[in-house]
Every structure is written in C-alpha cells, then in structure tokens.
C-alpha cells in the first residue's frame, strides 16, 4: 500500500500531498521537510529508490516536478514507478501537455484526478481510458450543477 504521495518542485515548494494513513499535522510537516531535503540532494543518475525510516521511497523527476511515493516493505518498487508514470500520463491527457503551472493553478483538479486513480493507497482502475472518462463525466456533472437553474428545476418539478 502506498502510504503517501508528494509532488514538489526543485525549489522545495510542495504542489500536492496525499496521505493514505492518519498522521498528525505536525508529523506530516516534519516528514515532508525531511524527505524533500533527502530527495533534492540526490544526483541525477542515482537510483530511484531509497530507504527511509521503515518505508521505501520511490521518486521520479518529470521536468521541474518531483513525484515521490512512500511504499511499504512488501510492495513492488518497479510497479510503483509505473504507477507514477500512469498518473503523469493522466494529468498530461487531461490538461493537454501538462506543466507545473497547470498543477499550481488547478490543484483541486489534480486532486480529483488522483482520487479517481488511486484510493486507499491502491490503484482503482488499470485502464487509462476508464479513469479519464470518469473524470470527464464528473466535470460535466459539475458544470451542469453550476449553470443557472430555473425555479422549477430547483424545486425539483422540472
């Protein structure tokens, strides 16, 4: 199971954090700071895996963003790299050639995509098409919701 996923920039700014275990706010901050320091200090050609506390950290850099996941002892590191890659592909398809600014200005959408892809630290659906379709439908639902409704509609009579 994935314990948490972090996205941060080369300057050490956190862009997304998703925690799949209950952790105190103070501890979260400490862990994020520590991990950012460790990962940002690694040189480009180094291994994508490292051991930290009792977890395994899998990280990958895409342009200016670091995608960093913490997995447990029994999890497969190589498939986690694939999970990270799949998430980036989803973001890319959704935003159309995604860059860091997209994730900054539309952070809540990045979260929605992540929540459609992973749940409780595990993959929900292994089909890219299926995940993208679900997000598309949810967005449509949100749009319908936001567009003005007639009085009758609000009362549920039309």
């Amino acid at each position, binding site marked *: 199971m994935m314990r948490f996923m972090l996205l941060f920039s080369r300057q050490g700014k956190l862009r997304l954090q998703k925690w799949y275990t209950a952790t105190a706010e103070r501890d979260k901050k400490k862990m994020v700071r520590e991990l950012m320091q460790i990962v940002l200090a690694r040189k480009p050609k180094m291994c994508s*895996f490292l051991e930290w506390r009792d977890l395994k950290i899998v990280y990958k850099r895409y342009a200016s963003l670091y995608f960093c996941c913490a997995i447990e002892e029994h999890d497969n590191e190589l498939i986690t790299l694939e999970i990270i890659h799949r998430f980036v592909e989803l973001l890319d398809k959704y935003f159309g050639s995604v860059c860091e600014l997209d994730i900054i200005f539309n952070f809540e959408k990045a979260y929605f995509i992540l929540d459609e892809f992973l749940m409780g630290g595990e993959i929900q659906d292994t089909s890219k098409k299926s995940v993208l379709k679900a997000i598309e439908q949810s967005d449509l639902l949100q*749009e319908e919701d936001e567009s003005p409704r007639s009085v009758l509609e609000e009362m549920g009579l039309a």
Partner: protein
Amino acid sequence: MSPSIPLQEMIRAIRSARTQCEERGVIQRECAAIRAQFRQADNGARSHNLAKLLYVHMLGYPAHFGQMECVRMIASPRYSEKRVGYLGAMMLLDEKQDASLLITNSIKNDLSHSNQYVQSLALCTLACMGSAEMCRDLAPEIDRLLRASNSYIKKKAALCAVHIVRKVHELGELFAPAARSLLTEKNHGVLHGAVVLITELCERNPEALERFRKTVPDLVQIMKGLVISGYSPEHDVAGISDPFLQVRILRLLRILGRHSETASDAMNDLLAQVATNTDSTKTVGNAVLYETVLTVLDIKSESGLRVLAVNILGRFLLNNDRNIRYIAMMSLQKIVGTDHNAVQRHRGTIVDCLKDHDASVKRRALELSLALVSASNIRSMMKELLLFLSSCPPELRAQTASGIFNAAERYAPSQRWHIDTILHVLTTAGGDVRDETVPNLIQLITNTSELHCYTVHKLYRALLTDISQQPLVQVACWCIGEYGDLLLKGECQETEPAQVTEDDVLDSLETVLQSHMSAPATRGFALTATMKLSTRITDNVDRIRSIVSIYGSCIDVELQQRAVEYNALFKKYDHMRAAVLERMPVIEKNSLGQTNGESAVEAIKAVQPATVKQGEPPLPLQPANQVCDLLDLLGGSEEPLQPSSVQSGTASGLPINNSSTAGGDLLDLLGGFEPTPAAPAPAVTVYEKDGVNLTLLCEKHSDSGLTVTLTASNSNDSDISSFTLQAAVPKSVQLHMKAPSGDFLPARGAAKVTQMVVLNNPNKVNLKMRVRISYTSQGSACQDTVQIDSFPGL
C-alpha cells in the same frame, strides 16, 4: 470545465509576492475574507472559497476554521459543492479531529445516492480518512455495494473495504464471501480491487488464508488469460497486458502458496510461463518479472524454477538500469542464506557494484559481498573490500570495518595475513572501528609468537607515519612496550631489516605522549609501554626515569597515578621491577564475547604481578536460576543444597572451575587429585529412557573423597546433540564437575560421553545426588531428572 477565477487570481497574487512577509500579508487578507464569507448565508461562491482555503492550507498555513464549512458543503445537494467539500474533508479532517464524525451521516446518505459520482466521492473519502468508528458504522453499506452495483462502484467499494479491514480487523469476516464472488467479474478494475481485498484478508487472518487457497486455480486462470491473450489496447502497457493486475495476482499467489505444497504445485507452470515469456526490455516487464521471482523464491517451488528465478536476478544484475541492479541485489540478499551457491556465481558482478556511484547501490553491494565471503575466496574478496574501505562513504565505514573483521576472523588463511588485514583496516579507517578491536588485536598478536618481531616492526613503522588513528596507536604502543627488545635487535625474517636505536623508540613513544591528537587512554598505553621498556633496553633507563617522574605531576589523574606508581617501582621496589615488567603470558583465547579480552586490557592498565591472572578463565555465563531449579526439586527432608558450578559443553579443555564457596579447600583438592583409572567396582545403570542410557561408576580415592564417572550413550536411530548434565548434592558435600568429553551422542551407541564428578563428603552425610539430563533430539529439546541414592563402591 470553466476555471474558478477568484481562486486563480488569489494564487497569482500569492505567487507574485516577493518576500515571505508580503506573502503572509496576502494570505492573511484572503483568509479574513474567506472567514467572513463562511459566516454568510448560502452564496454561490462557497466552493471557490473553500478551494482557496485548501490552497492556503497546502502552503502550510493554518486552515482549521474551514472544517465546519467542509461538513456543511458535504451536506449540500449540489455536486460542485460536495466535490470540494469532500476534498476539504480529506485534507483537513483526519480521524483525529472531532469534526470528522459529523460527516458520517452525510457519507451514509451519499453512499445510497442515485448518482454514481456522488457515491464515488463518499467511498473515496471513507477510504481515505475513515476512522474505526465510521468504518464500523458504514461496513454493511459497503458490503451491499460490493454485491449489487455497477462495476464502477464495485471496484471502489472493494478498495473501501480494504481500508475498513485495515482499521477494524474483525470486519474481514464480513467481506470474505463478497470478495470471493468478485473474482468472477470481467472488469479489470473490479478484479484488481478484489485481488487487493483478498490479499488483505489473507494477510490478516490465517483461517481466511486457508479458505482462499481454493481460489488458486481461478487466479492461475486469470493470469494465463492476461499472459497469453492478444493485444488489448485498453490495458496494454508497452506490450504487457495489464501489468498492475498481473503484479497483484502474483503477490496474492505468493501469499497463498507460501506454506502449501499443493498450492505451490498448482502455480508452478504458470510461474514458469510468466518468467520465460515476459518481455524484459522495459521497466514494466521487469516489474512483472521481479514479482514473479519474489513469488518463486517464497513458495515451495521446485528446484528448476528456483534456478530460473536466480538466473533472472543474475540478468538483472547486468542490466544497465541502476534501479534494476538495486532491486536484484535486494532480492539476492534475501536468498543468500538459502541458495548460497547460486548467488556465489554472480559474485564478480556484485563486487563490481561496490564501485557504483550511488550510495544505496553501494550499501546493497557491501552487504551482499560480506555475505558471500567464504574460505575459498577470502583473499580476493578481502582485496576488494579493503579497496572499498579506502573510498567508501563515511556512513558505511563502520559496517565495512566490522564486516572485514568478522570475515578475517572466520576465514583467515594465515596468522600473518590476519594481522596484516587488521593493521590495514586500522590505518585506513581507524576512527570507525569498534572498541573491542584493540584488545582483540592484542590477543591475536600475543597468540602468534612467531610473528612478534614482524608485527612490532610493522607497527613501529606505522606509528612513525601517522599517530592520529587511536586504535592503531594504542596497539602499536602496547607492542613496542612488550616486544621492544625484538625491535631493537634489528633483524627480522619477514620484513626488511631496519636499524632502530633506543632513542628512536623512546622518541616515538614520547611523541605519542605529548601529541594533542592522543586520547587519554592512548597516552596511558604509551606511558606503560615506556615503563616496560626500562627492563628491555640497556642505555637509556635514566631517560625513562625522567619521563616517568615528569608525568607524576600531570593534570590527568589516570596518567598521574600511573606515573607515581611507576616512580615508586623505580625507587622503592626496584628489586621487583624486572619481575613485574616481564613478558606477558599468552592469553587464553575463549569464545567470542567472553571477558578474556577485557581481562587482558585490565592487566595492561593495572600493573600487577602477572602470575595471578595467568591462565585462569572467567566463570562461564551460566544462568544461576537453572541450578536453583534443580535445588527446588530436592525439597523435603534434606537441608538446603549447595549449588554446583555447571560446566558448559565446550570441550575446549578448560581447567576446572572453582565453585564460589569452596575456595581454598578445593584448590588443595585440585592440586592433589589425578583421575584414576577404572576401579574394580562395576558400573551401575542409573537412568534409561527414550534410548538414553546413563551409567555410574564410583571410586573412593580418600577418606571422604569420591569420584563418580557418568557415562552416557544413545541407542536411538537419531543423533543427540547439546547433551549436558547438571548435578546437585546435599549441602555439606562439596562437588565439582569436570569438563565432559563432549556433548554429542551419535546414534546406535557409536560413541559415548563421559563426565567425571568429584565429591568430597567430610561430614559423612548420607550421600545422594540428583542429576538433570538435557539434550536435543530430532530438533526438540528434552529434559529429565534422576535421583541417585546409592553409590556402589562407597
């Protein structure tokens, strides 16, 4: 989807702030505005405000005042508000917050909502931050969704169930039937969720594991379908069909096949197929292969399959991708104990990885290399390890040094090699070695008397080059002190001759004494060494006298004490000086961890006549309560019994232990006593059970002294090991047991074990002895006691 303009403007404003202070100002203003908006009645911009707050929270600023707003928004009928509300709940309300319970009802309602996307929100939130209470409340709902809904919801419900089981283990029972039926679904998402759920259930509950073993054929079938099937565009990743599902199934198969022959057999073919057919050019393929290898190595697979798995790991080791090499070494580490020979074949590659630039790869390579050291490759491996030590990152040095010492200890081909290796380590990484290295090395040196000359020359030379590495300096000082005469003689077979004068030697020792780099302990070594040289050199005794008297007023109390004592040795006790400072006897080497090493150091620190400590081994570390147990058994008529000092089964020829109470008496007994050959009295069988036979033979050798010989033999078909005897006798009787001849009883009486017990009964009480027999047979430990009331021949 239309962007939320106010949110983006705020983000822009925050990002354009040039200083931290400016940013704080912007955020404070925004938060105030948001708070005001929250207090207002329902307005159209609620979701935007909450989103703004969440952004602020992500930057690290406090956002707890948004918690109630989240609760309210979740209860709203509008999807856009629910969406942000649930997101806020996942970010701000973890189970430690009280407000989290307030959303339980909303979640419950939303789980039965007509719109599946609303249901999805509720499921996701519950799986992310549901507390144990919430899980208990909502578990029946989740179970219902697992059975009767569309596949979109089913897959989410499965993962939600996983979270529930993690929080409340007992609820696993509830989901087991539904999980089983989900395996028949076609939808990959649902299958994946089902496999994860079953994995979780099996890991938590051994009974569930037993039941789910029956699903192995179904799982094998699904895997086959994935591996053999044609191209499926929806799930294809670089030519592999749904690698995520494949990996999960393999992991479940691992858990199911782990301790079961039948299950392992059922998956053998499949694993072989996956291992050979999976394309390993991309990471995806390697991920599946990796999982396959882990599974093969963990279940009861047949040897051909195991060889295939280890070969895959070998191929990984040669892969260009550093990640794959790292993975390979991690897996090899796990099996180096069981499949040692297979891993040995890849030793060359592993040793090459020691030179990799990545610290994690280096660490893995080091651990694996140390595990692969054996008697046959010790020389070449040690060369590599020493090379590594000189260039390794500082955090790995201590581990490398101790690994090298252990390996040298076990497989040293010659004494000289051993000493050379240790010296090499001390010169390269002296600061990172453990404390007991110094006494261990000293013990090693004293034991190799033929190399004393060589050693002292080498150490002297090392001392001349560098006095910063404390352990090295300490050993060097000690050796120079002990073997200074050999150093001064000049000639040495093993190394080039060098002319060393007495002044040179004293100069070097004085440098150590005066250097600011020397630790107090090191200076102590140097001072004692200087003193010892006073009996080994001829011309410069006065110089030594002056050095010693100078240090009589040293600030360091330890040094001062030594100097004062040595001064006294020069002045008042000059007649004893030669005897006190003579050559140390060879230190008896006991098993590792015994206090022998320390007693040698104590002998160095305290200048005492060497005779008392000579050859006396420390008391063995036997737990006292073991013997007291025996005493308890003998409750009743007799007076309380005297414990016997028990011998451990090491047949290392240790001289007899003195029991604490006996003291001087027993020394006499020891002095005058010699084991006599078998007396005319016949041997009596005192114990016969489970194939173990114990006979007793007595002979009197004095008025109150008696020797009892216990002989044990084993008539079983299986060998007996760790055979030990313990004895207790009445209080006034003195007892001690000599070392047994061994502790191994081969089957069918092929050999016997004898142990002699010497008894002294001065008060002529009624002699009884209770003997406890303990041994290990066929893997299980056995214990029995027998009371001996009559001693024939008495």
